[in-house]
């Protein structure tokens, strides 16, 4: 069906894809997994003829059935590609918001595909075909969706529209580049099921690109593991996941958080009294945070002078306590109020009712995006010292000499596993994982009792993710920290947390010991969340 031979793609003389060979048989779903920078997207874009003009194909050929689509050294045949794009091969992108034109009704956008590639359809037939496609991707209210603009649809619905657009002409090959990464977990599962169903019904081949090994395992027949532009290993799902041959594949699989691999839990039991049977007695630790009947709302339209201000309630009646030295996992879908709740605890949201009692100093926060949480104008050393300087400026009693501050910064740098040389660098010279380490160091240098970590590993590659989780565990034990650990990934939460708190639509649905929640969830919503993975 599709055959890629010996493909190399270079940007500015650096090869990002190196001698890659890949075949996709009829009706087969092939997964390409790899961490960022492994060349998986460039491969797909090159195949689709969408790679930017700056890329040069230094070697190889791409075949679609018996047609030679691309050959190294020859200019891209744009006309040939255009006759293939959309009708014989199509693509689903990661970000459903930006891949649809916000100024056009989605129905018309899908219809565009028909207008471009068919000649014999009347307007009415076209609309019927679009509605049919909408139904087949599970958009039940097809007539209404047809008339909608992208912003009127949810992320999952937009992605379904994208899929409808990709499959409406029944192409032989569908390339899906991280189609579920921007979606919530429950929606993610639905989309995966949908892709499977389409594959069965339409019998088209799929190339599924993802960084998430779990998804590849669930969807694909065969998997190709890529690293630094090379194919590390390829084989059937069973071969790769059950008997990985290469060291790198093994590392990748091990790094994926899962139920089987709950991290060795050390600190929680430190100081606990064990009874005669060796079981832990109930925790006798002081509370570090008490939240009671907390309502949080924010003002809508408060940035404008004249519009009336509307109050929007985001968190309703939150009540919970955190013990010292505990990791409390907070899980829920986007928009459920996780972040709002955490900002209220930090004191950054003034519109609160109810009480928040801290039994420690100011809590600190670690953000999701490692690229925006460090000031790009400053060196790492400066950033690490700043919390200490700020404390000194605020209160004379915390004032430190320059030498003491530097020593503390170096010490913290070592604690997060980075060497002295990073002290003088700026954050732009660091990788995502290193930046997240610095973020953690900066949050911990003032020794706060409580740290709120808002999706701290979601933006990282799996192997880095595992390292950062390990680091947070280690520091938590060493420094006797309490973490409020927010994540949408129930497996990450399982690995990290002592207790779990489930939120839905601004309310805390369920709270309890991790094992307890996983073994017998009481609420329907929790059950649903657990079933998705």
């Amino acid at each position, binding site marked *: 069906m599709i055959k890629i031979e010996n493909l190399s793609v270079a940007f500015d003389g650096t090869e990002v894809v190196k001698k890659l060979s890949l075949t996709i048989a009829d009706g087969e779903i092939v997964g390409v997994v790899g961490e960022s920078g492994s060349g998986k997207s460039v491969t797909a874009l090159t195949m689709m003829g969408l790679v930017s003009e700056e890329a040069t194909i230094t070697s190889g050929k791409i075949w679609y059935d018996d047609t030679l689509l691309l050959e190294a050294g020859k200019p891209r045949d744009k006309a040939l590609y255009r006759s293939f794009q959309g009708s014989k091969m199509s693509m689903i992108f990661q970000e459903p918001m930006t891949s649809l034109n916000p100024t056009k009704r989605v129905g018309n956008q899908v219809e565009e595909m028909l207008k471009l590639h068919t000649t014999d359809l009347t307007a009415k037939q076209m609309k019927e075909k679009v509605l049919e496609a909408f139904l087949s991707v599970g958009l039940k209210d097809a007539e209404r969706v047809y008339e909608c603009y992208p912003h009127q649809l949810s992320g999952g619905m937009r992605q379904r529209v994208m899929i409808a657009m990709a499959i409406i002409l029944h192409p032989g090959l569908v390339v899906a580049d991280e189609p579920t990464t921007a979606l919530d977990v429950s929606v993610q599962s639905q989309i995966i099921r949908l892709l499977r169903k389409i594959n069965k019904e339409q019998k088209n081949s799929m190339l599924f690109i993802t960084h998430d090994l779990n998804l590849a395992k669930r969807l694909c027949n065969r998997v190709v593991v890529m690293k630094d532009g090379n194919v590390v290993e390829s084989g059937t799902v069973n071969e790769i996941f059950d008997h990985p041959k290469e060291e790198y594949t093994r590392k990748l699989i091990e790094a994926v958080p899962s139920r089987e691999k709950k991290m060795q839990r050390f600190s929680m039991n430190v100081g606990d009294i064990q009874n005669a049977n060796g079981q832990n007695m109930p925790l006798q630790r002081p509370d570090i945070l008490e939240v009671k009947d907390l309502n949080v709302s924010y003002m809508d339209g408060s940035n404008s002078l004249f519009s009336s201000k509307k109050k929007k309630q985001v968190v309703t009646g939150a009540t919970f306590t955190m013990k010292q030295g505990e990791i409390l996992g907070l899980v829920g879908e986007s928009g459920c109020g996780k972040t709002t709740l955490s900002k209220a605890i930090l004191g950054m949201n003034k519109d609160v009712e109810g009480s928040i009692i801290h039994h420690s100093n100011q809590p600190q926060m670690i953000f999701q995006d490692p690229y925006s949480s460090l000031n790009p104008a400053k060196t790492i050393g400066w950033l690490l010292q700043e919390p200490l300087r*700020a*404390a000194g400026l605020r209160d004379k009693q915390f004032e430190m000499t320059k030498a003491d501050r530097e020593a503390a910064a170096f010490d913290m740098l070592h604690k997060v596993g980075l060497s002295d040389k990073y002290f003088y660098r700026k954050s732009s010279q660091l990788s995502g994982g290193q930046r997240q380490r610095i973020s953690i160091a900066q*949050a911990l240098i003032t020794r706060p009792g409580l740290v709120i970590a808002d999706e701290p590993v979601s933006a990282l590659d799996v192997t880095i993710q595992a390292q950062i989780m390990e680091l947070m565990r280690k520091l938590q034990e060493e420094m006797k920290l309490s973490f409020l650990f927010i994540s949408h990934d129930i497996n990450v939460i399982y690995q990290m947390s002592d207790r779990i708190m489930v939120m839905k639509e601004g309310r805390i649905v369920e709270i309890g010991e991790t094992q307890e929640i996983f073994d017998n969830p009481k609420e329907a919503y929790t059950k649903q969340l657990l079933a998705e993975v």
Partner: protein
Amino acid sequence: MKKVFGRLKQNKYLLAGVIMTGIAVLLALVSIFWTPYSTTAMSAAEKFDAPSFRHLFGTDNFGRDIFSRVMKGMGTTILISTLVVLLAGAAGILIGALTGYFGGIVDEIVMRITDAINGFPSILLALVVITLMGSGRQNLIISLAIVFTPSFVRIVRSEFIRLRDADYILRARLMGVGKLRILFVHILPNIFSTFWVSVMIGFNNAILAESGMSYLGIGVQPPDATLGMMLSDAQGYLTTAPWYALAPGLSIVWLVLGFSLLSEGIRRQA
């Protein structure tokens, strides 16, 4: 040093800009200590001499050496424009930072005032200020600075609004960093590249505005030489002594073009 030359070689905008402004600034600096002839020495015998090796740009209606006067005039123009941009830039940073970061009702009021200032042609507005305060070099600088402040306020404000909710600023707040420190130590360095470009553009506009004001006779007063005033003096002799007008005119073009190229070069470098 090698690195600098490497960059100049690659970035032709920067190279042209550096050379053109370099020559202009050098001439202006030299003119402080030395000019080929005195800028005020008149000579009835040498009225309207065409450009020659003796008088590079020729002489004017009083027989003064135009090259010397252009040198001096360029110095005056560059000095005034620099001071205007410095003053307006500093005011822009202060007002823009406070309004952008804190927002609210003060922000609304300040923004409406800047809208109002922007609504008038800059020369007209400067004229009003001059009439109120009287003419002279100092008042010219102040009035132009007032006219130029709003554009800086806008740019600084929008950058502060963009950055005030950045994750790293939220974190700085959590760490208990004081408000002023956040404004000027944490945010300010990050807006530098954007601000620098607007300073360059502002500088060009200031050169044009100063020349325009002097041309209208409300800027620097004679016998001090400025490019705009020379242009206005030369007006009557456009047909008989075209070099008299060409010299200051082309100098203004040279300065503005040089700075445009320089700022474009810097922008591309960033």
